[in-house]
């Protein structure tokens, strides 16, 4: 490009036909006087010719277009869910180990959620949860250590055998 010439900056637009008539006229006047810009213009026109030639060589063969156009006009773009499932499916075939690891992690996560929901105490009234009776399971006091200044003892109720740890201060005794 004509580095020392301001008009040289408009040469690309001129070659692409993007200049207005007055701008193009002004540039053509300049080209008549500026050899450097004329050389730059020639090289740009050659480059443009090569590009056009290359694009034409790699253009999609004409017989394919009617089919492609018909499919675009008739078909609907795949939905978000469909494309997502397709991506996962294709990834599964491409990277089976990673997909298997993802599936295991997802399954573990879902199992944890199910377990939590299953075990959640929310919503149950207290009256149904507190079981008191001989068949309700044995309570075992494994260890009992009163703090200094306190006394503790284990009482067992006479009917159902409930265990009661009774704690009193030494002053209360």
């Amino acid at each position, binding site marked *: 490009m004509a580095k020392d010439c301001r008009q040289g900056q408009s040469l690309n637009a001129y070659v692409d036909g993007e200049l207005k008539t007055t701008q193009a006229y002004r540039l053509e006047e300049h080209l008549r006087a500026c050899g450097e810009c004329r050389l730059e213009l020639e090289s740009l026109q050659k480059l443009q010719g090569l590009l056009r030639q290359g694009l034409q060589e790699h253009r999609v063969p004409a017989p394919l277009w009617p089919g492609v156009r018909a499919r675009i006009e008739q078909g609907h773009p795949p939905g978000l869910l469909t494309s997502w499932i397709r991506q996962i499916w294709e990834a599964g075939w491409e990277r089976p180990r990673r997909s298997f690891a993802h599936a295991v992690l997802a399954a573990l996560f879902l199992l944890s959620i199910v377990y939590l929901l299953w075990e959640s105490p929310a919503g149950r009234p207290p009256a149904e949860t507190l079981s008191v009776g001989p068949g309700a399971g044995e309570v075992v006091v494994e260890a009992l250590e009163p703090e200094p200044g306190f006394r503790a003892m284990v009482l067992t109720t006479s009917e159902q055998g409930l265990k009661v*740890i009774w704690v009193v201060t030494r002053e209360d005794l």
Partner: protein
Amino acid sequence: MRHLLTVCVVLLLPAALAFAQSVPIEVLVLVASREPATGLDPAIHSLVRELQRDFAYTNYRLVETHRGQVSPERPWRTAIAGGPDLSVVLIKADQRRVELKITTTGVDTRVGLSRGGSPILLGGPPHQGGVLIIAISAR
């Protein structure tokens, strides 16, 4: 999308697994006194009927209900009736039984309970003209 899912799973899985190892507990706080008997809360009916056979208290009131999750890594703590602190730690658990370490003012104990079975009772601390009785059960 797949990477986002993986990140979510990796971030949430440890927390979910830790939560899954925890045991739900329920703590009922009663005040037993020698005041005249009043209407009994249905939640403590069977418990009070049993206590009345052995204790001379005439009035039992349910003042608080706490529910929580205990795990070996995460003790469950609360203040009982605005007074003594209660701390419960899960020592071990299987499908049927749990072993809990219970600490409150004046005592440190370790008890084994059936899940969904009878509670362990801790009583004695004076409260509002009566005594506190704390019933701790595991699910």
